[in-house]
């Protein structure tokens, strides 16, 4: 079982990356902070007695579920808002709920921050950040878990609820998409 120190160290190590992951998904800094806080509390409350080695996979699963819950709540809220605002709404797109088409970058958030007048390095980092954010959700999740959170293929597959083959495919597609996008913008890493 993870000791208090192990859990604290794990959360400290993962919190900023988890925040960025949430920002990539929801595109709102405030909402992302709430999501990370919820995920941390859920992990500590429900799985605080699990071995330290299981924490990364469990935390990623909780984080992804919390992000999904956020989108579900937002969808319900948006439905009521649109009903009461009197605007007609196309119900045909209910089956295909597209996160990217629903959410716009919040002004002042990391996603929409303009750094055109900053140093070239900062601009490159921002462009990479944007390209990662543009990836399809599943590809981004797989890529970030594998290469940013240091999870192996099996752990990533378990956290995402898919097969190991799917994880490899998502990672490969994400890497190629990023390579193409960065090349198109003249960025060489």
């Amino acid at each position, binding site marked *: *079982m993870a000791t*208090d120190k192990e*859990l*604290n160290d794990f*959360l*400290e190590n993962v*919190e*900023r*990356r988890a*925040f*960025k992951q949430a920002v990539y998904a929801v595109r709102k*800094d405030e909402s992302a*902070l709430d999501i*990370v*806080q919820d995920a*941390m*509390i859920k*992990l*500590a*409350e*429900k*799985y*605080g*007695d699990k071995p330290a080695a299981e924490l990364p996979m469990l935390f990623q699963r909780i984080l992804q579920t919390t992000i999904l819950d956020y989108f579900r709540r937002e969808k319900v809220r948006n439905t009521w808002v649109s009903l009461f605002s009197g605007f007609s709404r196309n119900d045909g797109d209910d089956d295909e709920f597209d996160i990217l088409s629903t959410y716009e970058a919040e002004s002042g958030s*990391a996603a929409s921050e303009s750094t055109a007048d900053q140093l070239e390095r*900062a601009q*490159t*980092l921002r462009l*990479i*950040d944007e390209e*990662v954010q543009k990836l399809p959700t599943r590809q981004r999740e797989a*890529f970030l878990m*594998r*290469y*940013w959170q240091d999870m192996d293929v099996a752990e990533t597959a378990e956290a995402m609820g898919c097969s190991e083959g799917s994880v*490899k495919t998502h*990672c*490969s597609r994400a*890497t*190629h998409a*990023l*390579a193409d996008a960065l090349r198109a913008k003249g960025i060489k*890493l």
Partner: protein
Amino acid sequence: MNTDDINLAYKIRHALNEQLDTLPASTTDRLAAARAAAMARKKPEAPKTIWRKLGSVFSGPAMSRLAVAVPLLALVIGMGGVYQHEQQQQIAELAELDAAVLSDELPLTAYLDPGFNAYLESQQRSQ
């Protein structure tokens, strides 16, 4: 993924990590507060009793099925044992009765003889 792809993935990881250092202080403070809140609500470690140890042995889908099957099997075996024991007791009692009757000096037909019964009654009366 080939080596170039993996190299690119790790370069992107490096770039993403660099960005983490530029997070505003308000965000890192809020994350630290969230961590403290989570730690305050950490699930406490329950003392490990013998039952909890047994429970942890029987955790997992296959083991939990076994945890149901083993006591059920023990119950069936126990009930079979009790039934066998009762049968043996009954047989032993009957055998004892048969042996007593067969080893008696008085033949069984004597009890059916009315003259013998009359003799027994007269003997009881005289006593």
